[in-house]
């Protein structure tokens, strides 16, 4: 049996990497992906705890997270398409004005 703390620490590492990507990357899409990475890390922690505690709530919650992530991806990518269409760039540093 794998100790739960292993899973949790792995999820912590993944989360950290996600955060780093979130700060470090410049492409909107990649930043968005790093958010997904963070979500995944959290999901891992959820499942790990649910398995450790013998309760299924964690897994159910993961399902909800996934659903929300799907919705978020749909809307977010729509927005990204709009940005790319209006500003001809995907670099967040070039997208720092509210008005054009």
């Amino acid at each position, binding site marked *: 049996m794998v100790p739960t703390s292993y899973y949790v620490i792995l999820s912590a590492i993944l989360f950290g990497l996600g955060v780093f990507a979130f*700060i470090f990357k410049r492409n909107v899409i990649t930043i968005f992906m790093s958010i997904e990475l963070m979500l995944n890390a959290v999901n891992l922690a959820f499942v790990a705890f649910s398995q450790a505690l013998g309760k299924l709530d964690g897994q159910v919650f993961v399902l909800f997270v996934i659903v929300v992530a799907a919705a978020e991806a749909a809307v977010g990518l729509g927005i990204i398409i709009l940005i790319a269409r209006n500003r001809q760039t995907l670099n*967040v540093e070039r*997208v720092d004005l*509210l008005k054009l």
Partner: protein
Amino acid sequence: MLQYLWIVPLLPLLGSAINGLFGAKWRNEFVTAIAITSTGLSFLCALEAVREFFESGQALFRKHFFDWIVAGNFSAGFDLQMDQLTVVMLLVVTGVGWLIHIYATGYMAHEGGYYRFFSYLNLFMFFMLILVLAANYVLLFVGWEGVGLSSYLLIGFWFLKKSAADAGKKAFIVNRIGDFGFMLGMFLLFRAFGTLDFSQLFAKAGTWQPEAMGQFGTLTVACLLLFMGATGKSAQLPLYVWLPDAMEGPTPVSALIHAATMVTAGVYVVARSHILFMHSETALVVVGTVGCATAFFAATIGLVQTDIKKVLAYSTVSQLGYMFLACGVGAFTAGIFHLMTHAFFKALLFLAAGSVIHAMGGEQEMPKMGGLGKKIKWTYATMFIATLAIAGIPPLAGFFSKDSILHAAYVREGGRHPLYFVGLLTALLTAFYMFRLIFLTFNSKPRYDEKKVHVHESPWSMLGPLVVLAILSVIGGLMAAPALLGVGPDYFANFLAPVFGGAQEAVEAGGEAAAHQLELILAGVAFGTALIGIAIAYWLYLKNPRKPDDLAKSMKPAYTTLMNKYYVDELYAFLVVRPLLWLSTNILWKATDVTGIDGTINGIAHGAAAIGDGVRHSQSGNTRSYAVWVVVGAIVVLAVIFFWPGASKTVLGWVR
């Protein structure tokens, strides 16, 4: 109907609402129908309720309809109650009110804002009914303020006329002063008894120790404060000033509000809380003195007024003074009795005066009238009856009520009788100025241009109420007659006995036989004085009409003083109004409002702007900088969880 007592006040409210909301578009007939039916129905309901009340034979009926205010240990429900006192007031209000409504349909027929007028009038009915039906001081106060409001609206009905608008404001403000005292009184009562419900409060108060003369205990103070409210509402010294000006309003309003019903609210309140007053010698004396003084004072002013309505107004003030005098000497029955009779004949007087004004095409100055008696017979007849009544000529209503008051005053303070004699003198004055009015208006030769003004009798919608009221003022007092003649009890007193039972013994002190003897003598004296007054008036205004002017010239200072109503308004203007204006202009407006409040608010706004201007620069618009901030926040949170020993446990708790 007794179980659904709330219908009685509700009907006028409905009428008011309907007229107020839709009346503007309707023809006057509809508005009339709504107004008359609503008040009439409410009158019928009231009659039915009274019938059931007597059938049930209970001393006091009260019903809790719903909780209105419940806060902590304070609770004021929408409770209505009915006892004999309420019955009297209820019938007077609804009955007279209804008559006056009918009258008004004729009087206001050609006025603009017809629907508005009736909407206000019904609103007034609603509040007045609430006032008389209320079973606790809070609800009563609602009615109290409500009638104040509607009186304000109606006085200022012709709001385009500056004098009218000012009169409305004056009435409102002066009443505020009284209400201020009234509220303080309520607070004090609640503080002392923990309730404002009549039955509970009086039950508690009945057990208290009566407070002797000059002893200012809770009850005394409370009573004085309540009386302050009463003086405001019922136009007693020193707050009477608003009532004469209130004559700016349409005449039916003067009749209904400023003669029959609203102004008697003060008397009603004093009578309603008679138990409190009976427990405080001081309060009673104050009430009696103020009432007596007002009666005399107003009567003197009334002597010289030339405006027909002004005369009536001052007479109203003085009659109200009578009522308070009665209350002051503990004869609440007599007070209420006079209240009722006065409602009849004073309403009649006003309506008749209105009819006169109508006939004269809006002329109110008596010096420009005269000799109308032949032209408008009905008005003349009815008004003459009313005058006899108020002058105290037996066997009309006024005689009995006034007589019982004087008798009570005499009996109450055995030995010295200042109140009694002043009252008597006032009776004389009353008779005088009333007949002066009659002679100036109806009898002497015409002093107006017959070509211009063609005098005409009013329509029956106006005369009908006059006749009814005339009948009432004739028979209104007969209930007390048997007692006077010694052939039976005073039915009115017996009728009210359940309410004032406690109070009456004080009056009935002294042997029965002696009392009756005395009563007859006093009645005779009163009658005599009345006759003297009439005689003087006759001699002055019919025999040799030159005389009054000579008199006026001969005693100029007194005359001018009376003419200017003792300069009371000017006095108030100097003592109260100007300092107040100065205060509000310099301190409240310039200093507090402009400098203080506005300054603070603008300062806050500018501060916010400045801060925003400073912080703005952290908003670079660069997503990743925001991300950095998010991460920093997360780190701080984790640091707290990590370094604060208790927290990690809690986190575990969440994990579990």
